[in-house]
């Protein structure tokens, strides 16, 4: 069975639908990019997938190998207040919450794994630094390391490169691609349609027209072609 099966899903707030009749499947190892205009409901979709909010209609089925809480999440905005005192280590370790259950403290293997994930993100030299004093790109890596602690199976990333400069953006995309190669399923929201078609295996387009299929199919489709030329035009 697929990791995630979404059937006739409608989402929104207070009974008002933002996106309706979504159907898609995510298999283990997929790299799904969710694209669409601002306000088309991408973040809302992600929150619904994470059960942070109730769907208006339809269902989300998870495969047997995906247990509750076995999902790593990188939010679009972390509403961390600017004076929150927390070191990189403390934040990354907090990714193990789900595994902790009622056990009060982290054990040695969890501490080791946190260290490994920090190294994997290339921020080992920052591990004792204070989160709020890091740059945007460094903060994203910290949150990605935390998400990796929560799961080794599937990551949900909401615009992981928002506000990063082109160099750091490219590094971030490479990092995510490498994680995908290591077998982690990726669902990523992106505004950067160019990067989306470069890196992903599947595309979900939401908005006025809904599209779901492989990236090749998307590039050939009408909505895909339109969106691609529009973005290229916008960049010039």
């Amino acid at each position, binding site marked *: 069975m697929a990791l995630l099966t979404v059937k006739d899903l409608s989402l929104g707030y207070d009974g008002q639908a933002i996106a309706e009749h979504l159907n898609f499947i995510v298999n283990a190892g997929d790299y799904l990019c969710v694209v669409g205009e601002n306000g088309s409901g991408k973040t809302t979709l992600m929150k619904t997938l994470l059960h942070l909010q109730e769907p208006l209609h339809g269902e989300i089925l998870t495969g047997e190998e995906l247990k509750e809480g076995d999902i790593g999440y990188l939010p679009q905005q972390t509403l*961390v207040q600017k*004076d*929150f*005192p927390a*070191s990189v280590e403390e934040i990354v370790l907090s990714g193990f919450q*789900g595994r902790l259950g009622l056990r*009060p403290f982290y054990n040695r293997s969890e501490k080791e794994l946190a260290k490994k994930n920090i190294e994997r993100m290339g921020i080992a030299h920052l591990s004792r*630094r204070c989160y709020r004093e890091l740059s945007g790109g460094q903060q994203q890596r910290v949150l990605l390391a935390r998400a990796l602690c*929560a799961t080794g199976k599937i990551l949900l990333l909401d615009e992981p490169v928002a506000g990063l400069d082109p160099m750091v953006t490219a590094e971030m995309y490479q990092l995510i691609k490498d994680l995908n190669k290591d077998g982690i399923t990726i669902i990523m929201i992106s505004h950067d349609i160019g990067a989306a078609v470069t890196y992903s295996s599947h595309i979900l387009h939401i908005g006025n027209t809904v599209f779901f299929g492989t990236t090749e199919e998307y590039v050939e489709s009408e909505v895909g072609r339109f969106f691609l030329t529009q973005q290229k035009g916008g960049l010039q």
Partner: protein
Amino acid sequence: MIEKLFLYLEYPFVRYALIVGVLIALCSSLLGVTLVLKRFSFIGDGLSHVAFGAIAIASVLNLTNEMLLVLPVTILSAILLLRTGARTQIKGDAAIAMISVASLALGYLLMNLFSTSSNLSGDVCSTLFGSTSILTLSGREVVLCVVLSVVVLAIFILFYNKIFAVTFDEDFSRTTGMRTDSYNLLIAVVIAVIIVLAMNLVGSLLISALVIFPALSSMRLFKSFRMVTVSSAVLSVFCAFFGIVISILAGTPVGSTIVAVDVLAFLLCYSIGRATGGLAA
């Protein structure tokens, strides 16, 4: 000076006051960071006024053990306030303001109408500012205080990592399968217990100071959650100890003296933080 202090320490009520004061200061400082960062400081303030109202009712009803009424009422209000506060920030704030002034006014009214005491304004003043009630603690009250403090301390240590996670990023914690609502509830209940405890020490108007100042001071100096927590606890205990000692020697009101020492410590930490850009993590 020192001799005078040792002379005072011979009296059990002075020793009781020191033990209870230090324990209460320790407990109240622990959740300070969470309260400040979750914008719950208002709740602390509101709850202390609720506790004041409950004490007024208890004294009108002539209850021998006020705690039996005050503790449940405060815990219940904490849960209610957190419920409304979680939905929307503004409504939550308004609800807190309403409940807090209403209980303050009702409390005073009740005391005024029904009190049999000859020194009403003295009673009210000591409930609001703590005054000397800490020096008149009975053995039973001391035991109750110690037990509650130990419970609060144990809960805090056992749930330290969870408290950090829900404070730092509640949404993320929920996605990992944590029951964040239950932990918010736990935090609210612990806050309520701390406030009822601290009423004895500094009175209901000054409780927020006891909870918030050590956390704010430590946040000037340290940059990891653990160091800030440890430093708040140490600072708070230190300030409470000196505040009580000074108040005994100089004959000043206990609560206000402790808070004054806390304010001084904050100013000191603020300057150090400014000068050095904070100590190491």
